[in-house]
């Protein structure tokens, strides 16, 4: 029983991270109908920015509230910039072209980033994982019994950050002018443009927003894993994509539920079998979902318009 509870806690902790990344996929898919393959790798770039800031603050000594705030805000701003550049120079020139060209471009960007960062020349970090400074010094917050169930402080902090981010996003999308514009573009970009919405600006804004959320999630992941490495974007990104599909891609609350669900499933499968299977679980689950309910838990099956 205590095993079960511990897995539940760990699953929720990693699930919230997937959920944050999945939000980026879902938002971009909503406005562009594009699966942004490079999303996870943009997140990885953000993590390295956070890593650089944390190192220059003195590595493990950066464990103050202000230090954490600085690391997160620099990484989120920098990542937003990367997302903006990717959209501006990678996807915007192709918007009128067949959808496949944008998809291939995003795959190209993804691989350039994840393998480019594995080189060890110039400022590039090289393939070896770097230990992420303990900017949130880990200690057990709750211990039940004789270390039967442990809740770490970073689990609680990352859960809180994730919840705040999600609520903020929910507010932004449903309660502000920008959010309304975003939903309009998502519904019908051409008509939205005719109604006076600056479509390009909204799309740029969506990318910046999604990438910043990804940077935040990436840092939480780095704190959990205590490491950053160039391939993390590919794996976390793919799993987050699976989460977005489970929830119904394009559906904001669906991405959150999908992320939590995936985190839990992964944790339980790994917990009761072997950890080497971790990377295979998500994809197996994806195939099952696509077989049974391809539009996701909350998505509506939409017939393609001619």
């Amino acid at each position: 029983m205590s095993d079960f509870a511990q897995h539940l806690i760990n699953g929720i902790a990693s699930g919230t991270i997937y959920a944050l990344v999945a939000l980026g996929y879902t938002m971009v898919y909503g406005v562009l109908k594009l699966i942004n393959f490079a999303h996870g790798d943009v997140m990885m770039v953000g993590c390295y920015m956070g890593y650089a800031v944390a190192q220059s603050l003195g590595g493990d000594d950066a464990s103050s509230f202000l230090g954490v705030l600085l690391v997160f805000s620099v990484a989120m701003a920098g990542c937003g910039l990367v997302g903006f550049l990717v959209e501006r120079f990678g996807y915007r020139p192709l918007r009128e072209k067949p959808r496949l060209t944008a998809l291939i471009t995003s795959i190209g960007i993804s691989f350039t980033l994840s393998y480019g960062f594995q080189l060890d020349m110039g400022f590039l970090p090289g393939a070896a994982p770097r230990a992420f400074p303990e900017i949130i010094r880990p200690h057990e917050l709750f211990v039940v019994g004789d270390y039967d169930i442990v809740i770490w402080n970073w689990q609680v902090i990352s859960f809180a950050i994730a919840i705040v981010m999600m609520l903020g996003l929910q507010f932004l999308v449903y309660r502000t002018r920008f959010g309304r514009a975003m939903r309009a573009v998502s519904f019908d970009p051409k008509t939205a443009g005719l109604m006076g919405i600056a479509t390009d600006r909204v799309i740029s804004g969506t990318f910046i927003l999604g990438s910043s959320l990804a940077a935040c999630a990436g840092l939480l992941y780095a704190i959990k894993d205590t490491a950053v490495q160039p391939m993390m974007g590919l794996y976390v990104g793919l799993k987050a994509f699976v989460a977005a599909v489970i929830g119904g891609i394009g559906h904001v609350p669906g991405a959150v539920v999908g992320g939590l669900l995936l985190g839990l499933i992964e944790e339980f499968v790994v917990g009761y079998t072997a950890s080497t299977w971790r990377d295979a679980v998500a994809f197996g689950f994806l195939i099952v979902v696509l077989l049974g309910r391809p539009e996701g838990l909350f998505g509506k099956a939409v017939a393609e318009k001619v």
Partner: protein
Amino acid sequence: MSREWIKGPLPVLVVLPILSVLTYATTDMPFFIYLASITGVNVILAVSLNIVNGITGQFSIGHAGFMAVGAYAAGYFSRALAGVQLVFLPEVVSDQVIFLVAVVFGGMLAALFGFLVGLPSLRLRGDYLAIVTLGFGEIIRVFLQNTEALGRALGLRGIPQRSSLLAVWMAAFLTILVARRIVSSSHGRSLLAIREDEVAAEAMGVDTTGYKVRAFVVSSFFAGVAGALFAHFVPIINPSSFTFVKSMEIVVMIVAGGLGSTTGAVLTAIILTLLPEQLRTVLTSGAEGTDLAQRVDQLRMPIYGATLVALMLLRPQGLFGTRELWDLWPRSQPKASDP
């Protein structure tokens, strides 16, 4: 016409003797054979992936996964039967028969996996296939790394080396032939219709899911064959031969050659196989430093990725677009009006 029957096997009858002579003439040039075999395997992979990505307009990026299935299946099969000699057959012939069976077995198993992966994802829009095939490639790699019987990360050793130049290039030639004949069949017309406009194709009564899945299965079969051949001329196969990097290499080949152009795929497959080898030889000939060679290898993936982006932005149709090599000479097209 009474000569109609010869048209089917004619290309094979022409190519078979040429390849046999070539194989016989180069028996004492191991490096040439190795290079030519690798090139042939890449040609098979590129042409078969082109059936899905180019002709049908879907996007699979897990081709190496199917190659791995074929390689391990055929390799395991051959290794298990290494000492077996079929009765009434001399040793050489028996070996080749078992080799042929192994290759077909590898292809069939890959095709089965293609069916299992394709059926759920091809019912949906193209981008799902990209993710699912990528995921499939990863699952296969994780599976191979965790399975004791398949050697885990060390890989499968001791597979009898039964491949030859003739076998590899005959398979490559058959793949090209099948791809070309699919395009000009009524089946291929449906695939092209799906590529051009899936909704319209469906409205015209094309069973889009069925055609897509069949194209995917054919493509996976040949990827498996390529893997099976590969397993029979490299000393050892391990999971690291079948990663993302391999899949991306094939994708870059067909995108650069022009999605939908079989000859373009062949040409870029040959160029992109030989070019890195040449580069490595040139760059490392002065200093025998393995460091430099390693660096060249490291640079491959970022260059592939950047090439994809540059191609999409500057020349999305690739080298040939959907045209074939012979379309470059407009005079050679009177066949279009042939009955």
